């Protein structure tokens, strides 16, 4: 639940989601759910020459299971807080 909560704090921020088929989609994070399914708005595919498939998609729903990476803007993660929180969760507190 921790990363779900963390991603919720990123709503409204620009993120790049790389899928497990190498497709990288940049957009504004609209919502995230408990499976870490992600909704993006104003999407743009990183390499449109190679991936013209998504040219008529402006916003999309990405299934959490196909996400390889989420690139987040610099300064949107407080490493110390996240570090503490992951430890606390690991301890089961």
């Amino acid at each position, binding site marked *: 639940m921790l990363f779900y909560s963390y991603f919720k704090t990123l709503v409204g921020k620009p993120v790049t989601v790389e*899928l*497990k*088929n*190498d*497709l990288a989609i940049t957009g504004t994070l609209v*919502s995230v*759910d*408990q*499976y870490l*399914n992600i*909704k993006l708005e104003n*999407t743009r595919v990183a390499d449109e020459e*190679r*991936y*013209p*498939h*998504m*040219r*008529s*998609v*402006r*916003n*999309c*729903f*990405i*299934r959490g*299971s*196909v996400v390889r990476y989420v690139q987040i803007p610099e300064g949107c993660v407080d490493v110390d807080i996240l570090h503490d929180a992951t430890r606390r969760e690991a301890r089961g507190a």
Partner: protein
Amino acid sequence: MSANGGALGPMVHARVHVLTNDGRHVVGTLRGFDQVTNVILEDCAERVYSSESGVEEAPLGVYMIRGDNVALVGPVDEELDAKLDLSGTRALPLKPIKF
């Protein structure tokens, strides 16, 4: 779950793109979905990409796609889609999802 209902709910009855885990690209009208992203598409067609010729649309009818095969769902922007030159688009098919 309501969280997921918020995700695909607004797209019901709209034309949507669906990318599947095997790299296929299906366009159809979203008629239903559930919490594990099983989707039902009506009047759908597969867009078949090839580096040698333009995009071909293969009509499929009604499709039910099991959730674990769904990678991405996105509503079709009809304005942008109408402007697409599909027969002039040459691209390799998308790669399959590799877990």
